[in-house]
């Protein structure tokens, strides 16, 4: 039996300090966000700020208990904990209550619990346990598949609860796997896929294919052949593309077939000298065709598969509003132009109607939320409007001010100084966790540490990104700050298990 003093002495107090700062910031900003003049005591438990204080108190108790528990417990019981959480995720699908369209809550009397929150640390533990086992190498296909299953199971169950936001969090584990040896190409590929996705939506598939072909010729030509051939090919390619635009061959099918034909012609020109090494040639063509397919499927998926509300989440980000306004203006001019037939006029009118409809959707739904959120943060200025003096959040212009959009209150009342401070605290926390993870002697602790940092980072990325218009509107909480018991406790457990593991890093070799 080790003494308390011993336990506390080994704890990394800097992380605890950062944690305490964050929960305190959360508490006073929840107070500001839902401030009610009739209940102005910050301890009033009939209000969210009072309740949050209770959750904080409980969270501290939980943290303390975790620090008392032998770290061996977490390594030994990682898999059972994981199994229990998976069961509860299944259970919530059967017996849970629905809130905001997601069936993700257990209701026990007046008390609500969200098992998906606890799935995060359970999955982290399970993954750490699995990857720290002997003879596990990331290179093995079996390892990759099993790791994917460990991560994927809770993700799928949460997706079934219709909680898309929480599901996406599991994408964060890619950083963990990367650190443990997953090919960097997969990380790169993921980033590229997202990039191509966004660019396609902005510029349209044809432009992206043409650009991709261009890039392909440069890379492929330079890698395999010489500058001269590449140059000639590029000039030929550009000339053809130019001619193709010049003669305004607009019909879509023609567009694509010509783009494809162009590409193969160019590839043939470059490769005819080196027909010997056919395999590279074929791989190149296959990759290109797959890319084209991906690009077109984005277009298709976006317009046909995604639901309206999901689509607006993305279009809002892409500045679609200004685009739509512009398009409507152009159409108006076309409509009022002389010398067009009645049918054409009607067609333009229908078009304007459809565009106006989308614009309305955009402005009143998520578009409005993003706009109000930006106004709240933007109006804070450098020093902010002052504590409790925020108008955007106080008067309910910003939705979910105490939970997902809590960052708006901070931005509005504390200004750039406040948001800068908060971002720095978070980054310091993440980097500190990474640093501690790297100094672990056990793989288990390191994997778990990376999982903690990645999950917190992903929440930070999406939540703040959403409020400042850099990420789509996905409702996930800001760690330690957003109102809510389940999320606060789950993040606390997540973090303090790691603190506990770190405190005993020298004692136990797992």
């Amino acid at each position, binding site marked *: 039996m080790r003494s308390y003093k011993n336990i506390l002495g080994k704890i990394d107090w800097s992380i605890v300090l950062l944690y305490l700062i964050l929960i305190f910031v959360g508490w006073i900003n929840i107070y500001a966000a839902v401030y009610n003049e009739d209940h102005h005591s910050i301890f009033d438990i009939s209000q969210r700020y009072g309740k949050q204080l209770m959750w904080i108190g409980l969270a501290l108790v939980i943290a303390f208990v975790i620090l008392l528990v032998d770290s061996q417990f977490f390594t030994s019981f990682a898999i059972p904990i994981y199994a229990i959480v998976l069961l509860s995720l299944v259970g919530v699908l059967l017996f849970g209550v629905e809130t905001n369209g997601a069936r993700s809550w257990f209701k026990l009397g007046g008390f609500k619990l969200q098992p998906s929150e606890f799935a995060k640390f359970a999955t982290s533990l399970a993954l750490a346990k699995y990857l720290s086992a002997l003879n596990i190498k990331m290179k093995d296909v079996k390892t990759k598949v099993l790791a994917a299953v460990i991560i994927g199971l809770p993700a799928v169950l949460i997706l079934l609860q219709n909680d898309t936001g929480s599901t996406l969090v599991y994408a964060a584990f890619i*950083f963990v796997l*990367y*650190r*443990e*040896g997953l090919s*960097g190409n997969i990380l790169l590929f993921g980033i590229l896929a997202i990039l191509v996705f966004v660019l396609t939506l902005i510029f349209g598939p044809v432009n992206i294919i043409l650009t991709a072909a261009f890039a392909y010729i440069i890379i492929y030509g330079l890698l395999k052949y010489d500058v001269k051939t590449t140059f000639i090919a590029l000039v030929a390619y550009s000339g053809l593309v130019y001619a193709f635009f010049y003669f305004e061959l607009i019909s879509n099918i023609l567009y694509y077939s010509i783009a494809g034909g162009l590409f193969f012609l160019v590839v043939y020109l470059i490769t005819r000298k080196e027909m010997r090494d056919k395999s590279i040639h074929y791989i190149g063509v296959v990759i290109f065709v797959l890319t084209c397919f991906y690009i077109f499927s984005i277009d298709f998926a976006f317009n046909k598969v995604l639901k309206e509300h999901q689509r607006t989440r993305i279009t809002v980000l892409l500045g679609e509003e200004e685009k739509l306004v512009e398009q409507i203006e152009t159409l108006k001019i076309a409509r009022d132009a002389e010398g067009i037939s009645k049918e054409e006029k009607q067609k333009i009118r229908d078009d304007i109607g459809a565009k106006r409809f989308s614009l309305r959707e955009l402005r009143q739904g998520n578009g409005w939320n993003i706009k*109000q959120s*930006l*106004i*709240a*943060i*933007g*109006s*804070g*200025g*450098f020093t902010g409007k002052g504590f409790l003096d925020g*108008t*955007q959040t*106080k*008067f*309910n*212009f910003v939705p979910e001010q105490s939970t997902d959009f809590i960052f708006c209150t901070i*931005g*509005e009342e504390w*200004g*750039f100084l406040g*948001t*800068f401070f908060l*971002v*720095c605290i*978070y*980054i310091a926390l*993440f*980097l500190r966790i*990474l640093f501690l*993870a*790297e100094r672990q002697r056990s793989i288990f602790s390191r994997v778990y540490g*990376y999982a903690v*940092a*990645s999950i917190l*980072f992903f929440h*930070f*990325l999406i939540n*703040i*990104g959403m409020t*400042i*218009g*850099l990420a789509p509107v996905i409702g996930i909480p800001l760690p330690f700050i957003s109102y809510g018991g389940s999320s606060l406790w789950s993040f606390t457990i997540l973090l303090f298990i790691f603190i506990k593991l770190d405190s005993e890093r020298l004692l136990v070799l797992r």
Partner: protein
Amino acid sequence: MNLSSRKFIVGIIFLVVGIIFIIRLFNVQVLDDKYKSESDHNVLREVIQYPARGLIYDRTGELLVYNEAAYDLMILPKQVKELDTLALCELLEIGKKDFLEKFTKAKKYSRYKPSTFLKEISSVSYANIQEQLYRYPGFFVQTRTLRKYPRKSAAHILGYIGEVNQSVIEERPYYKSGDYIGKSGLEYSYEEMLRGTRGVKRILVDVHNREKGSYRDGAKDTMAVTGTVLHTTLDIVLQEYGELLMKGKKGSIVAIEPKTGEILSLVSAPYYDPNMLVGRAVGKNYPVLSKDTLNPLFNRALMAKYPPGSIFKTVQAMIGLQEGVISENSSFACNKSLVGCHNHPTASSVAASVKMSCNPYYYNVYKRILQQKRAKSIFKDSELGLAIWSKQVKKFGFGQRLATDLPNIKAGYVPDVGFYNRWYGEGRWAFSTIYSLSIGQGEMGVIPLQMANLSAIIANRGYYRVPHFVKNIEGIDTIPQKFKEKHSIDIDEKYINTVIDGMYGVVYEPGGTARRARVHDDVVVCGKTGTAQNPHGEDHSVFMAFAPRDNPQIAIAVYVENAGGGGSWAAPIAGLMIEQYLTDSISTRNKKREEYILKNNYKIPPPY
């Protein structure tokens, strides 16, 4: 590959995201200003504090116009809950269909913004409704003020107020949609003083437009300043009496205090109760009034151009004497071949000609004025004469807008050389062409106010002050300079006294045409009748007078359309007005006349 180097890549990704966020935040919060104004726009609402409009009093301190609270029932559709439609209909005393119509309209306007549900609830039903209203969330009562006219009189003078129209909003930034503005009368002329100054209260609202308290504790709010109190020159008792006398007639009465130019009463008949054009009633009453063939909205005293008729002979006499073309004892035979006349002895003096209103006499006077042998050609001579004449006539305030304080006043018309040159051609007209001007007919056009002003000029022995309604503006305690200025007509007093002798005769001497204008024995009235020929029907009855002869207190002009001779109808009305004003009562002799006048039977004139 050394996997531990990957910690840097993960760390760098975290750091880069943090830096991107900070750059974005710096952009949004510090560099870009647009969010700040949008945030203000979101939450700041300016609530206008409407000042009470200024009160209007008469010269004796009687209240003419005040404000009365009116109650509008407002609705905020968003807050309407568990509505017992039937009970509310009963409370508001409206039908269910009407109710649903109003409800739909309000919802259509906005679910979050209040709109008027029922306008101007009477104070009795207000008390009732207010008690019950707590049962109907989403409904509330808003107070505003309406103009009230306790004396129900002087509608043309006081004017009315109404909501501003779009062009006013565009031209005058003070006004906002829904504001009230003086549309006519004194309400129009003294709009800027009467309206006071609006205050602005800045309040904060939430996303549902609900009030959330004041902005910076009201530091930037301004208070409403109540409108200035206006004291008018009007004698409301006299005004009411004038309206009584003109009841059922067409025409006007204008009474002026000669020394000051203060208008004591100005009646235009037919008239209407000013309360008819207040608030909700406007919609109903305005079309009725504006479509009335007798045109009650038309202020005849300022806007009707009439030929002055024989009262204009006093002007001709004064100009003739001043020009030296006649003397006080000039005599002209009543030669009816020159111009028609009634039977009377030959006028052997100017005074006698005024008393008997001899038309041929003034034919000769005017001929002498125009043809003074300044040129050989009678055409040229007439031209030179007319130029002198019209210049002199204009000094009496004729042919020009008297700068009084009511809008839409007409100038009337005094023909000049240019006019006839255009009409007939230069050198193609002479006195004989335009002689009807000599007896106030022809191209002359005069408004009743100018006639009363003429009477005031004679009473003042040669000058006038622009007739006006403002006696005092509270807070400024003065009246505009233009109403204090003396306008001289440049006629010697002795000549005016000659005319006054004649005007005395008109009322008191045998052969005088207006013996019905006599009043109380202590009050000496001087007057002049006129019978303006009317080609469209019965002649107009005209009379101007002032009293007492020495130190006159009142100058008056009465114009009764289609009533016949001036002596029979206009004169007794003027007499009654004078008596009422000077003695505050009506003598027995005049009571009889009053009775006749109130009967409106033009065939039987009042007794002498």
